């Protein structure tokens, strides 16, 4: 892929993915909210060999989506990486907090990717890759809204892949497990945590090889298989 649109370019995983494309001399179009941070990311990628354009935008605002995609055109690879975890213990109880998480993690991505898919379908080529999460594989009490948003995104990506399979457009669903990023800074770490560098290598390999759904690290596929097999009658009593 020569041209990459990175949505949520200041996210830790997106930065590492963008570096791997910068090493290949790619053309990057980076979108993020914070101007100073986006500038730091863009400078880094330029030094590493990419040609970089940037746009400041709040991706929660669907009114910006068409304009952003038009500016980033022609699209080749669209990598969607933005998201928020929310904090179930502090805010998960309020409907407002749930609304904010759903807007950022599901409604915004669906709006963006629907529009991106129309453009890619029209040109008959390209690839969409998006960060979902293992949290979407089964709802847990500790991050149920985040899990619900990612479950929705996973289902949406699956449907998009199905719809676009005949149109020459690929869709890659990435399901990271725990990743050591600013999103999880406040949580105690354990050996299940992966580095954003590791996740990024898996993302780029999945895009290169034409995978549909990739768990990263790979063994999460089996962990989540086991988690999904637990009967609900038992699952509901587990502290997860």
């Amino acid at each position, binding site marked *: 892929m020569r041209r990459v649109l990175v949505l949520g370019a200041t996210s830790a995983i997106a930065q590492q993915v963008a570096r791997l494309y910068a090493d290949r001399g790619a053309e990057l179009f980076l979108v993020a909210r914070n101007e100073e941070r986006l500038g*730091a990311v863009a400078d880094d990628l330029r030094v590493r060999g990419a040609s970089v354009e940037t746009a400041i935008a709040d991706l929660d605002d669907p009114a910006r989506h068409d304009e952003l995609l038009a500016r980033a055109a022609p699209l080749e690879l669209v990598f969607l990486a933005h998201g928020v975890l929310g904090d179930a213990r502090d805010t998960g109880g309020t409907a407002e907090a749930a609304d904010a998480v759903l807007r950022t993690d599901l409604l915004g991505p669906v709006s963006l990717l629907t529009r991106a898919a129309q453009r890619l379908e029209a040109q008959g080529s390209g690839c969409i890759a998006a960060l979902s999460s293992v949290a979407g594989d089964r709802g847990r009490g500790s991050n149920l809204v985040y899990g619900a948003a990612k479950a929705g995104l996973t289902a949406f990506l699956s449907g998009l892949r199905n719809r676009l399979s005949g149109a020459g457009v690929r869709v890659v669903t990435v399901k990271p497990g725990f990743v050591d990023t600013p999103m999880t800074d406040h949580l105690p770490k354990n050996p299940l945590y992966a580095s954003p560098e590791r996740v990024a290598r898996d993302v780029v390999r999945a895009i290169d090889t034409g995978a549909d759904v990739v768990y990263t690290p790979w063994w999460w596929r089996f962990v989540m298989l086991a988690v999904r097999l637990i009967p609900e009658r038992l699952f509901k009593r587990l502290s997860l």
Partner: protein
Amino acid sequence: MQPLESWGRYPPARQAAVSVHWRSDPLPRVHGTLLPFGQGRSYGDCCLNEGGTLLATSRLDRFIEFDPEQGVLRCEAGVRLGDILAFAVPRGFFLPVVPGTRFVSVGGAIANDIHGKNHFRAGTFGCHVRRLELLRSSGERAVCSPAANAELFAATVAGLGLTGLVTWAELQLRPVKGPFIEAETVPFRGLDEFFALDADSSERFEYTVAWIDPRPGGVRGLYFRGDHSERAGKAPSVRDPAALPLDLPDFAVSGPTVAAFNALYYARGRLRTSRKQVRYLPFFFPLDAVGRWNRVYGKQGLLQFQCVVQDRAAVSALLERIVSSGLRSSLGVLKTFGDVPSPGMLSFPRLGATLALDFPNRGAQTFALLDALESIVRDAGGALYPAKDARMSPASFAAAYPRAAGFERHVDPAFSSSFWRRVRAA
């Protein structure tokens, strides 16, 4: 994040840690004092802050600007030297000073004013820092260089992280043709042979260092010397090595095991004395082949000793004392420093011979040896290296670092370290 410890894993310390993700962010508000923490490659307690907070900088790992004509690189302070080399070597540049591991951050290299195998020519790392930005607890961002904010610059180079958080630095790189080093290995026996070899080699080679095995019956060693090759070539792609997955038991570093390792290493070196081209990684960073090699020393950890003394008799006395202690060291290094001045007020390298060894932490036995070595160094008017130290007394520090009082005026009031409180204890 993982609980943070120093490379020697001694002393243990309890402290909070906060990651710094963006250089534009203000310092976090915390209880207690702050200390920047890069890659944790300092051996003792100068990267620890018992009861305070560490500012983990590993995510400040972005490049900012590169001038391919002049070889000037500006980058964030958490960038590792190995990442700079992986970037710079294919573009025809090299760091002017590299230590024995590529897994140190730019901030750590500045804070400890590290040296390489070419100190007699290139001086310390700080000699090649053109500018840096220092974020103080007052919120001030001071751009410091030998010309602007010169005193603060001199305090920050070798300043052990105490003057504030270095957010970025601008480094002068040096041109190279490719990734190769023309290297030679020369076996030697005895200190006289070492010093003769060293005098001859430093005239003709840019990089010199000796591995030594101090043992009953006299020291022996392998003298390594090399230059950047004129040969162009593709730089190898660099991945982080597999890490040692567990702490090894005590016998891994017992006397007989170390003696056997040293004998094998020496014998292997004697078979490989011809001049040859090697890639820069194994020449400069042989220990980096194994990630987390400090786990060889087990949970108790290791204590490093590194000093510089002018007097050859003192080197000899140090080696004799080590041999008589019965403790063996497998990573003994001997080299000489030149007289290139460093900008840093607390810089360690100075004219003389520098001896570095590591010892397993055997409690009182190891401490007694280190105390004895420290007094030999003090009597010889030498200095111990803060980056390697977990034991030196306030008196030794004051004697070896006479500019400490002047330095102290530049210490940020919100910053401190376990090392600093130890050596400045009244």
